[in-house]
């Protein structure tokens, strides 16, 4: 069976699989320095990290659905390194504890994407529905987290933006599963582009909250 290896592969490539050496290799990319930086640099850094998240995530799901175990493990490892780096960026702004909480929360939604992909691979509608429900619930969690961190980010607004991310991912995964590669790559581009709709307001809200740290230049 085409997908017979998938659950094993997905589990093996789960949420904490990023080897330390993978993290180390990634640690210099898109870094957000603690010192004062411009709003523009902050925007670029967050856009890069979030676009990379979408790209690596859909690379991982395509590999998993195609039964390409080694590729999936590598993609999932890179994806987790991206998650760690994103959490470090949050930690730089809001403290290490917040960074760790963000990482756990962020990894949770990747786990739900894994569940959805597994459900698609196994043609298990119940599993797919549960994963979608979990993802929709998660959008409120992430909205609440960012709203607690920054009063310029209303919970519902963030939740809606993250919902767009989740829906876009689902559409791309569905196309990947059907082998409709034209649609899959079109949806992948949309999913990557959508991340700007999260990164830009996030960067602007952070800059507004800490005007001394993120100079308007």
């Amino acid at each position, binding site marked *: 069976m085409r997908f017979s290896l998938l659950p094993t592969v997905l589990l093996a490539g789960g949420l904490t699989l990023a080897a330390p050496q993978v993290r180390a290799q990634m640690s210099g990319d898109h870094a957000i320095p603690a010192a004062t930086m411009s709003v523009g640099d902050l925007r670029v850094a967050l856009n890069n990290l979030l676009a990379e998240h979408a790209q690596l995530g859909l690379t991982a799901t395509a590999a998993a659905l195609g039964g390409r175990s080694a590729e999936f493990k590598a993609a999932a490892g890179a994806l987790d390194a991206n998650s760690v780096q994103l959490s470090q960026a949050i930690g730089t702004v*809001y403290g290490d504890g*917040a960074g*760790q*909480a963000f990482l*756990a*929360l962020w990894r949770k939604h990747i786990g739900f994407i894994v569940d959805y992909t597994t459900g698609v691979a196994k043609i298990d509608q119940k599993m797919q529905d549960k994963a979608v429900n979990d993802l929709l619930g998660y959008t409120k*969690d992430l*909205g609440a*987290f960012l709203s*607690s961190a920054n009063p310029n980010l209303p919970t519902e607004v963030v939740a809606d933006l993250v919902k767009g991310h989740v829906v876009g991912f689902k559409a791309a995964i569905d196309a990947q599963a059907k082998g409709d590669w034209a649609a899959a790559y079109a949806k992948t581009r949309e999913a990557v582009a959508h991340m700007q709709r999260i990164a830009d307001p996030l960067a602007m809200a952070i800059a507004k909250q800490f005007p001394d740290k993120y100079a308007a230049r």
Partner: protein
Amino acid sequence: MDSAMRYLRHAWLSVGLVVAPWARPAPEQAVSIHLFQFEPKAVEVPVGTLVVWDNGDDIEHTVTSGNGEQADGRFGGTLAGKGTRFSMRFEEPGDYSYFCDRHHFMRGEIRVTPSGKAGN
């Protein structure tokens, strides 16, 4: 008049003696929930302390006793959203672990010491 005053003084002292031990404010310990974290994460309190959790996040959290993987049923409460509270008085010395049942990575510890031995 004199006897009335004596009676009043006697009554006042009696009430004072009875009330005094109860009038002493019970110790309280606040734990805030903010950015999906319990703060402080670990507290040490004397027995009898009322621990009060205050949810600062715009989302439901729980205070559930257990190790983060499984609830042990010793205590628990739900904080439905921002501004909601849950409190629990700890009457027995010991170590109490708890977590949020919606976000298992949120964990906290309470060490309850025999009276007069706590330090935070």
